[in-house]
């Protein structure tokens, strides 16, 4: 498979690993867009990322000119193989001091990044895949919701989403109608907001950041930024891992693995309103990596 030549994707910031799991000073090896990368987080928390090479055993042996753009954000190290924008998309809630901020896990998944985003946006699978947690029969209907492509923010926004959930989070004490907002601020990242069981004026934030290893394999980084004063970290992580573990076989059995962007390629049942907007947005951007572009 040829390495990535999609300049839209090359010029983005991509996550490569959780800072919490990177021992200070230790070199981590990973892959991004078919390139082998090494990264290291200093004791000061500042990440250094470079294209792996045998003569560099640590960041101090990599001259500044050979380093890739790097930044720490939302608990992860981000880098780029091209010229990334000055800013990463904002998640203002991340700065709120009373939130629990955790990397629930980083999982390897045999799926394209866009297929994983599309599944993340789809509420229709809740009762069938996340039975008795995020959904339950007979509450299977996805009620009408709104989707827009925000031009000034260059992101997809789905609002007024509602779903009945038996166990919306670790802080839930029973079933509830839960409000959702979804954002797709990056072709391979999505952020969702759902009603908090502990404070009705605020929302829990859960994000999925996909690190494309190649067109059909990702590392999925799961960020939690939730309101829960009682549960231990590992209990909060376990809840999200359970949910993602249920999605995993579904994601890995998608066919074709790359997301078809031609509006006629798949039936509207699989591609609901937010999925249609997402596919259109990727087409407009000219994304070709991880997708099957629409015939011109």
């Amino acid at each position, binding site marked *: 498979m040829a390495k990535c030549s999609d300049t839209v994707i090359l010029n983005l910031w991509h996550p490569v690993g*959780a800072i*919490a*799991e990177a021992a200070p000073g230790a070199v981590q090896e990973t892959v991004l867009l078919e390139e082998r990368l090494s990264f290291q987080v200093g004791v000061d928390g500042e990440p250094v990322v470079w294209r792996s090479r045998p003569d560099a055993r640590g960041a101090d042996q990599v001259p500044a000119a050979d380093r890739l753009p790097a930044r720490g954000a939302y608990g992860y190290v981000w880098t780029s193989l091209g010229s990334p924008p000055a800013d990463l998309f904002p998640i203002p809630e991340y700065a709120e001091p009373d939130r629990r901020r955790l*990397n629930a*896990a*980083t*999982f*390897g*998944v*045999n799926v394209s990044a866009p297929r994983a985003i599309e599944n993340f946006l789809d509420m229709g699978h809740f009762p069938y895949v996340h039975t008795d947690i995020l959904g339950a029969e007979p509450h299977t209907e996805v009620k009408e919701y709104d989707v827009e492509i925000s031009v000034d923010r260059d992101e997809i926004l789905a609002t007024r989403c509602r779903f009945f959930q038996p166990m919306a989070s670790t802080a839930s004490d029973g079933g509830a109608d839960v409000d959702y907002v979804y954002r797709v601020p990056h072709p391979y990242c999505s952020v969702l907001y759902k009603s908090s069981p502990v404070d009705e004026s605020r929302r829990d934030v859960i994000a999925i950041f996909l690190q494309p290893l190649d067109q059909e394999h990702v*590392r999925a980084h799961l960020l939690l930024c939730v309101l829960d004063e009682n549960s*231990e*970290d*590992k*209990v909060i*992580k*376990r809840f999200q*891992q*359970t*949910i*993602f*573990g*249920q999605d*995993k*076989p579904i994601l*890995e*059995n998608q066919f074709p693995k790359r997301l078809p962007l031609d509006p006629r390629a798949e039936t509207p049942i699989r591609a609901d309103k937010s999925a249609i907007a997402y596919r259109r947005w990727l087409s407009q951007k000219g994304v070709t990596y991880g997708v099957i572009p629409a015939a011109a």
Partner: protein
Amino acid sequence: MITLYDYELSGNCYKLRLLMSFLGIDHKTVPIDFYPGREHKSEWFLKLNPLGQLPVIEDDGLILRDAQAILVYLASKYDPSGKWYPRDNPALLGEISQWLAFADGITATASAARLHDALFYDFDIDAARAGAHRLFRILDEHLWFGEQQGRDWICSAAHPTIADIACFPYIMLSEEGGIPRQDYPAIRRWCDRVKRIKGFIVMSGVFPAGPARAAA
């Protein structure tokens, strides 16, 4: 009450949750942050199991590790029907032990492949997959011949035993390690039978039997 030191995505822990569900016995769960926290290698956990592995149970002051050993213990102690581990049938006990050891081989191959692909363990992925296929081929043939003789389960009994429980999880999860099961039709039919045992529960990544034949 039985305490299970548990990680949701572990097939070995699931073996014990499954048996306890089949037997209808209650237990307490202590969640272990196996990934990414590596809590099973922490100092306090190594005191419980110096091998640094899940699962472990604690029952009446007894601390026991190894999924297969725990299946033997729980079935011997808590199954009044005596079917899951028939203590008075030497030939059957021998067969069960044979397949419990085989199940550990499935852990060493199919589970290792899944840990490599999903959790980035540094294993030889080709060797793990090839090893799993070799075991699946042997089990598929064994189950196919069993079906010809009217035997539905791994061991020579008219009912499932703990050998079926021990082999089931990492076969069901094999695709997460890049090990497809389409060439093992007898395994697929057996998996479906396991899912229809009264009291069956799922784990994350394993789905219930389809409704199509549920009424049958």
